[in-house]
């Protein structure tokens, strides 16, 4: 059975705490103030970064959310496996992102950092594939 989104994010956070504490501190610093809604197929998770802490919950007040990302699992893995570019995913509507341009740019830098980290961390990689 595939891993649930919130469980995945909790375990991902544990991997980062154990294996990459310095990179995690940097990520928290960059993401401070974000309330990020991630929708994966029909699952929802809200990642809140405040005061050097990350919390993962199921919901948040609408006005507090400053980034919303909607993606399907098939699109996520097509993008990760290079079968689909980000531009193509946006064009087909399989990836939808809402937020102010400034916040989205911050998010892009964070995603880049996380993806780079995923390439060097087998635990991160294998955990991601448990979502499938």
């Amino acid at each position: 059975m595939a891993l649930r989104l919130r469980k995945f994010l909790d375990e991902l956070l544990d991997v980062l705490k154990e294996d990459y504490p310095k990179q995690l501190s940097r990520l928290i610093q960059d993401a401070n103030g974000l309330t990020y809604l991630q929708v994966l197929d029909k699952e929802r998770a809200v990642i809140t970064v405040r005061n050097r802490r990350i919390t993962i919950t199921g919901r948040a007040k609408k006005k507090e959310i400053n980034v919303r990302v909607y993606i399907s699992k098939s699109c996520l893995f097509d993008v990760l496996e290079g079968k689909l570019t980000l531009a193509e995913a946006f064009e087909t509507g399989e990836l939808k992102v809402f937020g102010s341009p400034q916040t989205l740019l911050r998010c892009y830098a964070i995603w880049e950092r996380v993806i780079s980290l995923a390439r060097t961390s087998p635990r991160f990689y294998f955990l991601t594939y448990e979502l499938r």
Partner: protein
Amino acid sequence: MFFDRKSRVFGLLNFAVHGNPYDARRGYGAALAFLVGPGGEIHTALKLIPLGKLTISPYNPDFIADEVAVSYLGDSFTIKGKIDDVSLDLKVPVILPPVTMNQIGLDILSKNQINRGMLGAATEMARVWDKWVELPRLSVVGKIRAQGKEYLVDTTTGYQDHEGGRFDWGTVAGWDTGVLLCDPTSAGEPERVSFLFYRYGPSGASSYGGIIVKTASGVERFFGSEKVTVTKSGEFSGERAYLPGVTRLLYPDYRPRVPATIVFSAVDSSDSLEITFTPRAVCTIVVAGVSDEAETTFNEMCCDAELKATIGGMTYNKLIPCWFESVRPRGRFDDPWL
């Protein structure tokens, strides 16, 4: 590596362990396939395997995982299973015995005038590579399925190299290596043509290597760097693939330049050689360092190699399929072909 001349299928399969093999947090297995079909179509696949689900040993060439397994028994490999959506069912009997890096090095050092470049590269390679060995000729028989297509393979032009120990990525400046996948039973073809130009030193500016040609009658010639001229021209614009997939996500505009043609020319007394390589398909693989941010780019190329040579009185003029691998640290050196 193999190229079946009847079905015109090229295959590069790689089975490796990256990082620390004793630590599941820092190590993993990887199985990779780069296939080029008769129409030039490319199929690529990469599957990472947790160390806990992989059977490997430095004393045995087996690489056994649930999805895909390479096993060695009775002078023959069996490759069976799936790498993502590429399905493999191959028998790979060994035709010629293995040759170690030390054997090749000592042979070159004993038969040629020793120079500084030769010693520098030999010292560096002996330090970085632990138990490198090549199997110069293999039979490859079986079938491969990819994206709904089935390819039948039956060839004796297979080649394998194997690093059975530790390999230190940290200081590697790269290399250009390859093998002409010769069929010595075909008229006008040598037994073997292979090459390696190894880059080393803090800035990667030091380089030494050469081309080895062996005729079907057993005459062997080595053309060292000092006798070889390498000319690159044009820019390859054919079929390309990138691995792993996140390379395209992280570096959407990354397209390392690959020449349209590469020519090696060499003369040594009565022997001469000219090989013109024309890449048909390229797979760029970006390998991320495990302990730092360094990345290494592999350009794996399926080429046509036009061989014009006179070796030991034998004259060659033939188009031979070839595997060419060009390796560089990504973005570290100011190289026009990076």
